[in-house]
């Protein structure tokens, strides 16, 4: 018997992505997941990731090929709109 202990990957959704997912976050098993793209496929199924959405891994911007591991925090971020309105 093999006992496998894993810490989940924590996935966060913000703004419009959260509305679309219908939830703010997910905890998923890292098993079988290699990259951020794999994480998206797991949480969103067939739905493609909108091209304007950015990804952060452990509070740093990263790309879809970024490797993931147990305990990582992965966030999907729509285009940011902070600061003033004054363009």
């Amino acid at each position, binding site marked *: 018997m093999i006992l496998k202990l894993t810490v989940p990957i924590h996935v966060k959704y913000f703004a419009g992505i959260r509305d679309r997912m219908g939830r703010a976050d997910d905890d998923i098993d890292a098993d079988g997941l290699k990259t951020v793209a794999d994480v998206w496929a797991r949480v969103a199924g067939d739905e493609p990731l909108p091209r304007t959405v950015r990804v952060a891994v452990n*509070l740093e911007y990263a790309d879809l090929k970024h490797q993931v591991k147990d305990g990582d925090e992965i966030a999907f971020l729509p285009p940011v709109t902070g600061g003033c309105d004054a*363009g």
Partner: protein
Amino acid sequence: MRVEVRHGEFNPWEELQRHQQASLLPNGRHGAIASFVGTMRDFNEGDSVQAMVLEHYPGMTEKYLGEISAEAKKRWDILDTLILHRVGELQPGDPIVLVAVWSAHRAAAFEACRYLIEELKSRAPFWKKESLQEHSRWVQHNTPAASNRGGR
């Protein structure tokens, strides 16, 4: 060097005064303070905006704002920086963001201040949701910084 995400209203001028009073900078050291205040407008893309909710990514926001402050200090000869950004519910006219830079040199103060607001706008994880007359919507993109020189 201070970075703060604030829930609830702030008065930018009182914040500037408070920061400067609390600062350890000797009084006669800096010669220049460049600051920028962004406020909420009551219109955007042709629609009248009633109110707005500003969401952010706690943890990542502060980390990112700290990184651009450190980067500004590396690039320019500046003494201190302050970034204060509002989150939560806002009314038109409310200050949203304050960026200030203290320096012995006015060019460095201006350039670093401009750099901080541009970096903040392009990458800091904040999202605005506007309440229009009939519905609400996530703001889709930030406005570019293109100069209006020769405009009007």
